[in-house]
């Protein structure tokens, strides 16, 4: 659906976007992740035809943004970082204007606008002046504007920025719902957001593409060995004896007593943490009357990966796994930032 090829944008000597290539399939929700100033907004502005690229090409549904800009623009709904709202207009007038601007079918106008208004939940502020709305509602009006005309591609630049937690969840749900039929590119510097809604993540830093995968794969990739945290009831040394008999266990670290009569351990394994491994672990403990009270897989969180990938220190980049494992307990080591 979207093909971006060797995209570069220079401002003087500074490269805001540096040779980025990726594609987005139809119906996919792609997360676009990067620290502030990484080039996310610039890439999105080029994609939507707002600014030009220095070199490289952008194709949407087979149409080139430079050669057939109107064909591309027709297919894209864009919510820029700052919603493009006219503060002196009433919400419904504004949506009417955008509807006409997008040259959509006049006959379905009222019904379509009402549908969108219901989706983003701005029915109760329809007749209010945009300038008087709260930030959350302005963001929703911006989203409504992007949704008008049911474009096949939605490009949302930090859609939840400045919203309260409840609104964030609502907007995320809206995006997930929309993503069932549309191609969405969503930028963010908030990691849980991306992992919550996106099927695939692209991480860029200083204009360069540094990683591209599913949120799950990204976290697997950066945890070389599988780690498991378990809490077992019983005597510490007895438990260790049992755990040692489980096939595939490489090392056991005692994490201490966190609940009465039980101990926590971190197990590193040489085999994948699949159902087979869990079954054996459970059976062996059960035989010795040692109930497993808790079991959880320790994967590198997206925060770890993100900090890792975008770290300025080149040393860290060269030996990723060794460094990563030190921090993979879920807690982020702040000294890396």
């Amino acid at each position, binding site marked *: 659906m979207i093909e971006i090829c060797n995209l570069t944008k220079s401002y003087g000597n500074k490269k805001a976007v540096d040779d980025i290539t990726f594609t987005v399939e139809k119906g996919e929700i792609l997360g676009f992740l990067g620290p502030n100033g990484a080039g996310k907004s610039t890439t999105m*502005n080029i994609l*939507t*035809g*707002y*600014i*030009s690229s220095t070199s490289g090409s952008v194709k949407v549904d087979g149409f080139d943004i*430079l050669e057939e*800009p*109107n*064909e591309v*623009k*027709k297919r*894209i709904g*864009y919510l*820029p970082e*700052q919603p*493009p*709202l*006219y*503060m*002196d*207009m009433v919400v419904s*007038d504004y949506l009417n*204007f*955008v509807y*006409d*601007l*997008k*040259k959509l079918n006049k006959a379905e106008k009222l019904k379509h606008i009402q549908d969108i208004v219901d989706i983003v939940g701005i029915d109760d502020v329809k007749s209010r002046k945009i300038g008087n709305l709260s930030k959350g509602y302005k963001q929703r009006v911006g989203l409504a*504007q992007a949704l008008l005309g049911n474009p096949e591609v939605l490009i949302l630049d930090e859609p939840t920025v400045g919203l309260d937690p409840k609104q964030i969840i609502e907007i995320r749900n809206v995006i997930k719902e929309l993503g069932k039929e549309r191609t969405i590119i969503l930028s963010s510097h908030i990691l849980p957001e991306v992992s919550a809604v996106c099927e695939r993540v692209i991480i860029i830093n200083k204009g360069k593409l540094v990683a591209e995968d599913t949120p799950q794969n990204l976290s697997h990739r950066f945890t070389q060995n599988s780690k498991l945290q378990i809490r077992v009831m019983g005597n510490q040394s007895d438990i260790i004896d049992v755990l040692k008999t489980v096939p595939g266990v490489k090392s056991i670290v005692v994490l201490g007593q966190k609940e009465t009569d039980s101990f926590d351990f971190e197990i590193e394994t040489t085999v994948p943490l699949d159902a087979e491994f869990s079954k054996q672990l459970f059976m062996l403990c059960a035989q010795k009357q040692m109930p497993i009270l808790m079991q959880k897989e320790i994967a590198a969180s997206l925060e770890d990966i993100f900090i890792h990938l975008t770290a300025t220190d080149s040393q860290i980049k060269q030996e990723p796994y060794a460094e990563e494992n030190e921090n993979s307990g879920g807690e982020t080591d702040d000294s890396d930032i």
Partner: protein
Amino acid sequence: MTAIFKREFRAYFHSMLGYVFLTIFILLSGVMFLLSNIFSATSSMNGYFASMISWAIFILPILTMRLFSEDKKLKTDQLLLTAPISITEMVVGKYLAAVGTFLVGMAITLLYPLAMSFYGNVPVAETTSSYVGFILFSGGIISIGAFMSSLTESQIVAAISTYGVVILTMFLDMMSSHVKNAMISKILLWISPFDRFDDFTLGVLNIEAIVYYITIIAIFLFLTVRVFEKKRWS
């Protein structure tokens, strides 16, 4: 284009700008009418238009200063430039909205010749051609203002630079009479928008002058389009 035009035209009256413009416009034109027609007891509007033309250049930039710069500042240009419309449509739509607001003021001034027609003979040909000429002249000034507004995101800078350009053209007539070289003097007079206006007050619809003003409008609208195209291609 109609969507842009409708929004921009309404925007003048959603904000104070349209009302401020019309108030000043009608107030000034009323004073001019009083001075040049009522007090002078004449139904010829030549004097009226002669003074209007030197006043208009000071109030027309009020209409144009926000035309593009406001969009740049509020980032609403992102909406316009990513919508499936051409840049020409956007520029012309906005331009026509400014002209439309100006024409509302002009329509109100039609009351003056109308009122005079009850008490005397209004020279129809001269008055009509003066109106046509004045509208063309103002259209030119508005296109210059539109271009200046597309260059900056500050409305103040847009207004002041428009004043600069327009006031400079005011002196073209004066400069041409001081220049010794006949050729240069002729060129200066030829590009002066003020000199061209004289024919209209005599009741002559001079094709050359009409083409001249339309060309001015076309050139500055074209340049405005280029400003946005450049951004897209740079």
